[in-house]
Each structure stands twice: as C-alpha cells, then as structure tokens.
C-alpha cells in the first residue's frame, strides 16, 4: 500500500479528534494540555503531508519549516500552560478544571 495523502489526512484527523476528545473530557489540567499538544501535532502532520504530496514539491521545505516553527511555538505554549497549571494549583490547591470556574459570569 503506497502512502497517499488520504491516509495521512485520515491519521491527522484521527489524531486531532483524539486530542480534542482528551481536551474536552479529561478533568485534569495536564491532560487537557496533552490533548492540545495532540491537536497541534495533527496540524503539523497536515503541514508536512500537504508539502510532501504537492504536485511540484518546492525546493525549500516550506512544510517542514512551518512544522518546526509550530513545534517551537507549541513548546513555548506548553511551558506557559504548565506554569499556569502550577500557579493555579498553588492558588487553588487543585488542578481539576471543574473547580477552576472563576471565569463564571
């Protein structure tokens, strides 16, 4: 079975869905962050897949570079997210997002 774009897109969509499901259903803040990272990974996979299966692949590896950037940004985002989780934990003594409802209107 030759790799085609569809297979990559299906894998990416599944990855995104799993990530989304994790972000929506888990109660622990760290798991939500993991879910978000998974969705980002799905997006990165799409970047690279669309670059790899383009009719005339560009010599500069634009897809790869975008993925690299995105990974760097997501690393920074994960750092900020984890820091926030730690601060929230110190403040509220919990990481359960059900109890972190200060945004309630």
């Amino acid at each position, binding site marked *: 079975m030759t790799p085609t774009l569809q297979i990559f897109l299906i894998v990416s969509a599944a990855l995104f869905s799993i990530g989304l499901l994790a972000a929506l259903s888990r109660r622990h803040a760290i798991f939500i962050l993991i879910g978000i990272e998974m969705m980002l990974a799905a997006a990165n996979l799409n970047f690279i897949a669309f670059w790899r299966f383009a009719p005339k692949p560009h010599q500069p590896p634009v897809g790869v570079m975008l993925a690299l950037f995105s990974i760097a940004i997501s690393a920074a985002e994960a750092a900020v997210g984890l820091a926030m989780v730690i601060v929230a934990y110190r403040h509220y003594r919990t990481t359960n997002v059900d109890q972190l409802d200060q945004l*309630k*209107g």
Partner: protein
Amino acid sequence: MNSGIITNLWLIPAVPCAASLAILSLSNARRKSAAVLAVIGQVFALGMSIFAFLPTLQTNSFRAVQNFTWFTFGDQALRLGFVLDPLAAAMLVMISLVGLCIFIFSIGYMAGDKNFVRFFAYLSFFSGAMLGLVLANSLLLLFIFWELVGLASYLLIGFWIERPSAAAAAKKAFITTRIGDMGFFLGMLWLYKRSGTLLFYDGGSGCLESAGLATLRASATFIALLIFCGAMGKSGQFPLHVWLPDAMEGPTPVSALIHAATMVAAGVFLVARVYPLFSLGGINGVTSSLTVVVWIGVTTALMAALIAIAQADIKRILAYSTVSQLGLMMVSLGVGGVAAGIMHLLAHGFFKALLFLGSGSVIHGCQGEHDIRKMGGLRRLMPVTFVTYAVGMMALSGVPFFFSGAWTKEEILRATEHWPRSHAPYFLMLAGVVLTALYMTRQIIYVFFGNSRVASERAHESPRVMTMPLIALAVCAIFFSVVLTPAWPWLHAYLRGEPAQFDVARLIQPMVFVSLVLVGAGIGLGIWVYRKAGAQDRQRSAEIDPLEYAQPALFRFLANKMWIDELYGRTVITFSWAAARLSDWMDRYFWDGLVRGFGAVGRVFAMLTTSVDEHGINAGVDETTAGTRGLGRLMSKAHSGQIQTYLAALAVGMLALLLLYAWLG
C-alpha cells in the same frame, strides 16, 4: 482779638464738644478731671462768647457772616456758615453763662451718681450743640445742631436709664419733638426749592434777605408754618408740649439746662431767626403765619399756667411754668415784638435756671422728695435756697421794678396790646400773669412756709458748690433788669439795632401799674387761698389742696394735665398701635400669604413633575434596565466558568463551519 473771634466763630461750639469727647475718653473713676474739663470748656465758651459779644456793641445792627462750602455736587455747592449778630451774641452769652452756673451746680448735685463722668460729657455736648445752633447761618446747619440738641436732651432726660419712667420720658421727648422736626424738614426742603439757598445771610442773596425773600412770595406762609412746627416741638407749644413736663425724669440740672438755656430756647430762637419768613408780605405786621403763632402761644400759655396750679411735683410746676412762659414768648414774636420776646427768653433763661437749680437744691436737701405737699418750713432750714428761690419766683411772677422778668413781661404785654387784629390775646395774657403769680405763690408757700412735714424734717442747706451758682443766677436775675427798663431800654435797642436813649420819665408807664395790680392780685389770691396750707399738723404727710376742696372736679381736670396725655393715648397712640397691628397683620397674613401662595403653586407644579418623572419616564427607564438585567442574567448562565464547556462550544462552532463549507463546497 475781636476780628479773630469773628473769623473763628466755629470755636465756640467746638470747644465744649471737644471737651465732651475728651471726657468720654476718661475712665469712670476720673470724676474730678471730668468736671474740671467740662467747666474749663464752658469757661472757654463763655470767654469767647463775651469776645464775640464785644464787637456787636460797636455798631448798630452789626452782622458778621462767615460762609464756607460744605461740598459740591455738579455745579451746585452746598454752603454752610456762621453768623454773628446781636441776636446770636446775646444768646451766646446767656447760654454759656447759665450753662456754666448749671455745670458748677451739677458738681454738687450729681456728686453721688455713679455715672458722673458720662453726665458731664453729655452736658458739654448739650451746651456745644446749642451754641452751634445759635451761631448757624444756614437753615441746614441750624437743623443739624437742632437735632444734636435733641439727641443730647434724649441722652440726658434718660440719663438714669435704669428707671423705666426715665427711658419712657426720653423716648417721648425724642419722638414728640421729631413730629415737629418733620415739619421743619419739609419747610426747609420747600424753602430750598423756592429760593435755592439755605443760607440766612449771604451778601444779599441769602434766603432771609430781600432777593431771597422775593422768590418765595405766597409760599412763605406755608414754609414759615412748617418751620414753626419744629419750633412747636422744641419749645413745647400746644399740642406738642406733652414731652416737656415728662422731661423732669432727668436729673434736675438737666431740667434747668433744658428749660433755661438750651433745648426749649431753640424753638423761640428759630422763630426769631427766620422772622423775615413769617413777616413777609404782612400788612401792619400781621400775616396769617404770625396769627397762628399768636394763637398757639396764647393757648399754650394759658393752658400750661392752669395746669401748673394743680401740680404737686415741684419740678412739674416749674415745667408747666416754662411751657407757659414759652407761650408768652411766642405771642410776643407773633404780635411783632421780636426784641421783647428774645429779651424775655434771655431773662427767663436766668431766672428759670435759678428756679430749677433752687428746686434741685430743695430736692437734694429733702433726700430726693419731689412732692411739695410733703415739704414745708424750709425757709429756716435752707435760707440761701429760700432767698434765691424767692428772687426767681418774683422774677417769674413779674414783680415790678427790681426783677428782670417784670420788665420783659411788660414789654411783651405792651407789644400785645397794640396788635391790630384782636385784643383777646392781650387780655388772656393779663390773666396769664395773674395765674403765674398764683401758682408760684402756692409753690413757695407749700415748700418754704408753714411747718415742716415728712420730707423736710431732716432737710439741710446744700453745699457751697450748689449755692454759689444760685447766688450768681439770682444776682443776674436782678441786675439784668438794668438793661431792660424802659428808662434805658438798652437790650431792646441792641436787639433792634437802634441806639438806646436814657429817659427816666419813661420808667413810669401805665403798664407798670397794670402789672403791679395783676401781680399783686395773683400773689394776694395765692396767699389768701393757701394761707392755711402750710399750717397743718406736722404728722400729716399729704393734705387736701384748698382748690381741690372747693372745686374737686376742676382740680382733678387740671391735676391730670387736662387729660391731654390720655387723649393722645386714646387717639394718636392708639392709632399708631392700630397701624402697627395692621402692618403686622398684613405682614403675617397678606404678604406672607402671598409668598406662601406662590410657594404652594411651585409645590403643586413640583408634585406634577414628580409624578410624570416617577410614573412616565422612570417606568420606561426601569423597564429597559429590567430587560437588560434579565438578558444579562440569561447570558451569564452560558458563562459557567468551565473552560472545557467553552472549548466544546469552540469545537462545535468549528465543526459547524466545516460542515457549512463542505455543504457549500
């Protein structure tokens, strides 16, 4: 020196006024310096008055005028001035001399008073104001001093402020004279409107000189009568005489000053000063304004003399005698005897001051008792007072030959006799002479003869500081007659501006005999009626007056001052009370009601707008806010604060967008 005093006439009133201010600045304990300052001021005024008097002797009808501009408005200058003529000079000397005697007497009389210092300040002020009045050459300046005299009299009549009766008497004097002054002021305004000047003498253009008088014509009568209103108030003429007897509430030296030298003399002096206004356009010296003056004078003289017969207060008798004598002076002025009237004013100044100071001495000796029925027998206990009082009494009654009052009274009677309009004033004045002799005899019998009664048992002669002025005034009252006799009518000629001639033959005139008979009749009647009055049992404090015994109703009528005070109380005072009440009522109910009415209209309007606001506008705003709040509450439900809910919404939204895109695709 002579010319110096003429150009510095203002010093004469200024010195006593300055003394008054200086005394006021002293502390209450500096009694001696207060008296010394007052007396020095008065001596200075007397000295300057005599210096001012001298040049007026040199020429007949001497007149020195010194005018100055007070202030200028637009191109009109208001000018005041001082004038020195025989009338002013004679008054100056009399006022300052009598004033000096009264000042010295006061040192003894007021010795025990706690407000001694204030008393002398007021006395000096009184004297200064009167001296200024006499010297004024402008009706306005005269009016200013006139009011200052009124103020001083108010302060002095009410000197014993802790007595309600003194405060009431002071108020009565002030308000009664103010009624007259109102007329004076209106007359002054009218005069200024017609003639354009208030200066008496101004080199031919003053309002009393021919040029000024020519502008007045027929209005002169009304102006003169209005000015006479002021004189009526000040000189206690009927119907404004009521304040004068009440003014007895002041200390006795004040009564002497008011009755002799200052206050009441001002009215007579004023009429004499503006006499050209009264006599303008007269035929035979008779004008309608002068006729009014005569009849007012006659009424006053007779009425006051009758009332005096039935009074029991030693000072009140003298007060009514002053009113009566002032009426006599007014008659004299009215019938054309200006010089005679002023002569009587001067002579009266001496002997009335003497009588008042004598009564002060009696009161002082009797520990403050005023009722003559409680005195008696003082002849032996107070010999100096008795002799001087008798001199005063005879001068007032008009005993011929030796007493000044007799000659001036005869002069007045002679002038009245020849009044062309009517002979009634003459005969009424003759009756007045009898009455005067009668009430003075009554008084002297009650006070000095008979046995001593309650108040006079422990009487004593007054100290020398009080008897010396009495002696000085008695000597004046006798020797003043030297310049009054018809044989050498020096003062008469001096005042009229004629040279005096000596003629012994004129000494004996029919009038002397008329006067002798009348005064004899009055005194004889008095002795006959009151012969037993003093001989009563010494234990009895008061007794029935012989007149009261014979005519109780008449006596009551006179003793109650003809019920004039009561009449005023029922009419004028009731009327002003009613007017005050009406104004009060108007204020309270009418004007206040008006204001409240406007307020109520405003309140009704405010209520209306309130209800529109509350039910109209507020309701709309309330609805809107309620709606907004409900919507907000609804919306806030969506904001649960659950991040995952938000995330789910985001995912759903994105999915929806994807589906939309695919469907449109």
